[in-house]
């Protein structure tokens, strides 16, 4: 028996075709140069294919021809909205490879920078995510606060986007005098601002309708797809590298790992909103307990790890950011340099998430998994 389609029911006259639509690479809501090929039935998405590679700069290959310190600068350009986290991840991997000891003061400052960076990255996320769904005011509010964080970074290392703010074995420079006070003052401002975003979104009926039940994915499915970070925690899996395999000073910090229940866009949103608050909690603890001491450990003048390989992951704002580095022990550059980018792994869940939803949900879901194309393509 024929399946009941408009064509079998009414003949050629009502034949319906699928509409193939090319979303991106120039599209306002694909967060950069992502291209999604959508197959539509009316406005319903039957299938989606994600095409990446428009921002490929060959960072991994380039790194094999740079010395170990120069690579820090390249890692800035991967997740360019969270450059400090990338720096920390890379430096810690090399430190693990060389078995270097990092002074406690450096660890604390790294923790503060990582968490400030997480807030900055989440600010960008909440802004663009809300903007994709049509709430444009949140975008500017979030950028207003992100600016404050960039000011703090500028005072620390002179740069506002690509910081190059770490060195293998510690930090390039100590925090400026009075900087910790400013960080604490920022925390107080930010507390109120998070409530402001939530007033505009969390209980907004339209926001609820647009995000609840959209892109539902169960915990095991999400884990099987390699999703990580807030996108995975939104599905109820309490996986956080900061808790599970603590690095920097996270083992000395008290914080909770928020998890969602439903695994939909709304829960992923709630998880990230709670992460704002947890990050502030960590920053307060770290800033108040920052120890005196040196900022760089005992690092050999020529960085040349012994032959070997290592993998080390940290919790970047987007998820589990891992570095796999092989050293041949002979040259002053890595033999192999490979990154496990959280955005890339989260992005591969997109076709699964959008299936059966409408075109408008596609942009909501791209925002919901929080990708940065610089990191996806590298």
């Amino acid at each position: 028996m024929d399946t009941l389609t408009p064509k079998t029911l009414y003949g050629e006259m009502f034949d319906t075709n699928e509409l193939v639509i090319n979303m991106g690479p120039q599209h306002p809501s694909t967060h950069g140069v992502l291209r999604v090929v959508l197959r539509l039935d009316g406005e319903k998405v039957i299938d989606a294919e994600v095409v990446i590679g428009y921002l490929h700069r060959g960072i991994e290959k380039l790194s094999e021809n740079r010395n170990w310190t120069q690579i820090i600068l390249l890692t800035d350009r991967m997740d360019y909205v969270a450059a400090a986290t990338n720096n920390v991840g890379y430096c810690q991997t090399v430190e693990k490879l060389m078995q270097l000891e990092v002074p406690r003061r450096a660890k604390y400052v790294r923790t503060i920078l990582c968490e400030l960076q997480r807030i900055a990255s989440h600010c960008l996320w909440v802004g663009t995510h809300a903007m994709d769904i049509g709430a444009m005011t949140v975008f500017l509010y979030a950028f207003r606060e992100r600016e404050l964080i960039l000011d703090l970074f500028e005072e620390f290392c002179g740069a506002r986007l690509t910081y190059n703010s770490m060195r293998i074995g510690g930090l390039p420079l100590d925090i400026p005098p009075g900087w910790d006070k400013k960080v604490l003052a920022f925390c107080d401002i930010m507390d109120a601002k998070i409530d402001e975003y939530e007033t505009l979104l969390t209980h907004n009926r339209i926001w609820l309708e647009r995000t609840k039940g959209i892109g539902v994915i169960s915990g095991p499915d999400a884990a099987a797809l390699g999703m990580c970070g807030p996108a995975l925690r939104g599905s109820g899996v309490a996986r956080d590298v900061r808790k599970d395999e603590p690095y920097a000073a996270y083992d000395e910090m008290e914080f909770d790992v928020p998890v969602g229940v439903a695994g939909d866009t709304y829960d992923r949103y709630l998880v990230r909103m709670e992460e704002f608050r947890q990050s502030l909690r960590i920053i307060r603890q770290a800033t108040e307990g920052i120890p005196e001491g040196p900022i760089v450990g005992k690092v050999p003048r020529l960085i040349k790890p012994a032959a070997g390989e290592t993998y080390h992951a940290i919790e970047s704002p987007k998820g589990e950011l891992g570095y796999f580095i092989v050293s041949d022990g002979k040259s002053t550059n890595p033999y192999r340099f490979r990154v496990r980018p959280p955005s890339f792994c989260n992005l591969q869940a997109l076709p699964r998430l959008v299936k059966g939803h409408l075109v408008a949900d596609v942009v909501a879901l791209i925002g919901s998994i929080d990708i940065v194309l610089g990191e996806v393509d590298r």
Partner: protein
Amino acid sequence: MIDQFVIPTLKIVIVLFAGVLPAVTYMVLLERKVIAWAQSRLGPMRVGPYGVLQPIADAIKLMLKEDITPTKADRWVFTAAPIISMVPALIVYAVIPFGPTVQFFGHPVSLYITDINVGLLYIVSVASVGVYGIILAGYASNSKFPLLASLRASAQLISYEVAVTLTLVSVILMTGTLSMVGIVNAQYNARVWLFIVQPVAFVIFFIGGLAETNRAPFDLPEAEQELTGGFHTEYSGMRFALFFLAEYANMIVVSSVATTLFLGGWLRPFPNVAALHFLDVVPSWIWFLLKSFVFLYIFIWVRATLPRYRYDQLMRLGWKVLIPLAIANLVVTGIVKVMLR
């Protein structure tokens, strides 16, 4: 001679070229400013003091821009669509009463272009033609995103036109006339503005008005984030400007109609309370503009605050909430009206 030809012609010229068109262009500036303030920005500040000349600069820019017709577009429909969109938005002003008849240098001048006995019907029918502009634009562009937008526009038109028209029927039941001037006078005689006796109709009309003018949170046909501008993706220069102006002209129409129907038009607050007679120093048309401005401000405010509805949710809201509510309101109005007689 003067009363028959000069004054009516002058009125049309003044309303359209000194009233509506500047109002529409400055509406754009107002929106940019208000949204900027809501978002802790400054808005346009460069052209003239506080950016007050920005609309003029924008107009010059749009007129000088290259006018592109895509090769695959349906040339005639593509050209006609912006006009179909703009013209109804302007001719609706023919029946909007900005004030009562006043004496002006010894001549009686009514502050409306004309008062026809089916004014409300005229507005509804003309305003619904405007949406064809959007539908045809999306269709004629021969491009995928505009096509989706025009589908959305047709769905939206059907869902909201019905609800809005039903609320208008309740208004007609209350006032017993279709003439815009008559409706205002009926509110004067009833000693009460209609939004107090018809709150449900008022709210539905306003929501429907948002949807009909494609304003946030119902701006689906031009959803910039999904459809990259929607129906006007392929338009440039002055043709794009026509769509743009039509949207703002429609906003003013909806505000004016809402003012006339529900807020007593040109009447001052409590028009029957003699103690408030001093309020009459403010001319009637100023009251009208003030009330309309309140609506326009809410239009902008809503846009700065709310996210956008999704296509299916908009349909659900229209068919499952607004239309039943409007029908219930109509029935209740009718029953109460009969019982009070």
